[in-house]
């Protein structure tokens, strides 16, 4: 009995000691939370944070991601309720700009390293009226994955023009191979990684996009029609029953070697590498039609912003400054293949496939996904319109002309610059 009491006293003393010690330690270090939608990269981001902790022992950052489809809603709820994370992943363009306009994000004007290390284009994705509100963090690239073995077997070269791509598809189809594995069951992928992947090759890069956005040309001009025509071109080369082929099915058809090509994004690299298909695979840039320059859809995806209501703003700014360094970019590139740092300094990636994909856009004109920068702030938003139109063209229920008209008429209802083309 007595022994027991002495033992519990000992436990108590130890507990109090531990508590006191941790209180002393925490008095020295500040802990910040980092909100994100990337639940797949917890370990990788933690290694990035560890590198930061090493050089800044007085700051601790805890990575706390949310289920991706719920992120926007959860973050907004937290910010309104005053329980938002100190640091957070910020979506590019419209979603981030809304949060900044409502005052939830700290303006980052004059942040050390921001202007020096990032291009105007990538900074624009997280700026409102030239005020930056997040450090450009990750971008994703788009292209076409191909089965190298199948290409060799059928004596095919990497197509340099859109016409050659269709030729390749025709040869493959004649040989009984599914040319492209993509389908429209999940809907978003046909829009986001097929249509917006090929789109800048037909209309041009950022400059061309600005012409649409400022109302110099209507959304149903000949170039837009030609882009929808391109979807019509590839429709016969999609898998049979493509209406029932989901994004996952499309990946599997490619990985099983039943389809030779897959319109995809750099984020697929990690999954394809880990799936270890028994053939050699690589990527090429989605080619432009004869006589047009190839433009790659290189999309700014995630920035990192600071909560304007955070009690640890100083520590947060230290972290954001560190993020602009080449050191941070290199760690990010190595840890998360397929999501690329936006730092202007050239980076070499350890993963061969991710590096191949990264190399596709170098020396070429690039642009974000077409509807992201300006066309998402009204109803019906540009994303929904291109998605409906793209699906209808692939299915054959709209002609390319009708699809472009549908896009123009939908945007006319709210997008002021293009209203002058209203019939």
């Amino acid at each position, binding site marked *: 009995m007595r022994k027991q009491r002495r033992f519990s006293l000992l436990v108590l003393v130890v507990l109090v000691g531990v508590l006191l010690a941790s209180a002393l330690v925490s008095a020295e270090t500040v802990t910040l939370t980092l909100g994100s939608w990337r639940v797949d990269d917890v370990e990788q981001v933690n290694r990035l944070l560890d590198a930061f902790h090493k050089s800044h022992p007085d700051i601790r950052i805890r990575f706390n991601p949310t289920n991706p*489809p*719920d*992120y*926007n*809603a959860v973050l*907004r*709820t937290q910010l*309104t*309720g005053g329980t938002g994370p100190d640091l957070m992943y910020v*979506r590019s363009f*419209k*979603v981030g700009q*809304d949060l900044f306009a*409502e005052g939830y994000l700290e303006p980052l004007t004059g942040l050390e390293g921001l202007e020096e290390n990032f291009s105007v284009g990538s900074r624009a994705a997280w700026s409102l009226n030239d005020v930056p509100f997040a450090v450009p963090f990750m971008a994703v690239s788009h292209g076409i994955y191909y089965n190298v073995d199948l290409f060799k077997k059928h004596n095919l070269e990497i197509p340099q023009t859109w016409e050659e791509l269709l030729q390749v598809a025709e040869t493959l189809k004649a040989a009984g191979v599914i040319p492209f594995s993509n*389908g*429209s*069951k*999940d*809907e*978003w992928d046909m829009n*986001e990684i097929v249509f917006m992947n090929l789109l800048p090759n037909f209309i041009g890069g950022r400059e061309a996009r600005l012409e649409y956005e400022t109302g110099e040309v209507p959304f149903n001009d000949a170039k837009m029609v030609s882009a929808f025509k391109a979807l019509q071109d590839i429709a016969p080369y999609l*898998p*049979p*029953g*493509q*209406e*029932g*082929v989901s994004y996952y*099915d499309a990946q599997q*058809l490619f990985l099983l070697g*039943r389809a030779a090509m897959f319109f995809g994004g750099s984020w697929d690299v990690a999954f394809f590498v880990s799936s270890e298909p028994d053939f050699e695979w690589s990527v090429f840039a989605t080619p432009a039609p004869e006589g047009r320059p190839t433009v790659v859809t290189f999309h700014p995806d995630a920035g990192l912003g600071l909560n304007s209501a955070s009690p640890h703003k100083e520590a947060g700014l230290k972290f954001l400054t560190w993020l602009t360094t080449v050191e941070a970019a290199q760690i990010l590139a190595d840890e998360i293949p397929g999501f690329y740092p936006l730092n202007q300094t050239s980076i070499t990636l350890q993963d061969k496939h991710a590096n191949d994909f990264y190399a596709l856009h170098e020396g070429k004109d690039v642009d974000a996904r077409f509807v992201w920068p300006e066309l*998402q702030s009204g*109803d*019906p*938003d540009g*994303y*929904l319109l291109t998605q*409906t139109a793209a*699906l209808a063209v692939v299915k054959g229920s709209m002609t390319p002309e009708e699809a472009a008209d549908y896009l123009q008429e939908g945007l006319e209802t709210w997008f002021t610059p293009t209203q002058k083309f209203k019939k």
Partner: protein
Amino acid sequence: MAQAKRRFRKDHWFFFTIPALVIYVWFMAFPLFNSMRMSFYQGTGLIPTQFVGLQNYVELFTNPLFRDRLLGALKNTCILFAICMGIQNTLGLLFANILAGRLKGRSVFRTIIFLPATMSVLVTGFLWKLILNPHWGAVNQILVRFGLKQFEGYPWLGKPETAMIMVGLVTAWQWVGIPTMIFLAGFQGISEDVLEAASIDGASALQIFWKVKLPLLTPVIGLVAVMTFVGNFNAFDIVFAMTNARGAPEYSTDIMGTLFYRIGIAGQHPVAQPNMGVGASIATVIFFILFLGVSMWMYLRERGSRVQ
């Protein structure tokens, strides 16, 4: 003194309902009315704060962006209800009639019929999605094996003409066990005397079913119909599991539940900014549809029992 005590006892019952009442009011009545209240507000934050009167309803019923989706969702929910009534409940009635008879291995069949109802909707949805897959699904492979070459690679869930029917059939497949059990209980509740009297009078088995069993089962049929009705108008999970919250393809599987989820809770990909005010007004519309349906059933039942 004694009288007072008795009166206290008479009113005593009320105190026993308090725990249940508190839970009911807090978790059912209050959220319901609060959601109705929210349908008169607009705003982007955690709680819509700007009072807009009937504006959300005007939007919902006149703005083609919402109206077309609402009408589409109503139509698709009715298709789902029709499939569940026509196939699930009819089969349930048939199975119950068979199980109520002197069938060998009854309990085995009963278990088999009820088994799918114990599975998670997300699991059945995923399994059927695989079974109906154009490339590795069993359905198409079986059809092609039987010489129906036109079904090679047919996307059952990808065509607007077949997608809703497939979702309805999967729902029926999963839940057929519930009406079967309820009808079985109903059949077992019918007195042997009545059935014996009918057969002594020379009625055939078919006549007994139509003229004796079925009329006696009417209240149970009504109950099952209302349960199906409520279930279908609140359904969401099966569509979410088999197609997506947008009711792909081309909104052909968009039902009331997915419409509410998309507008009120999740928002549209990729901006994903929900419109809680309009979402709450959709929820209120769903509530009134259910309210009307259930009241009608209660009225008919009251009248029926009074006639008897």
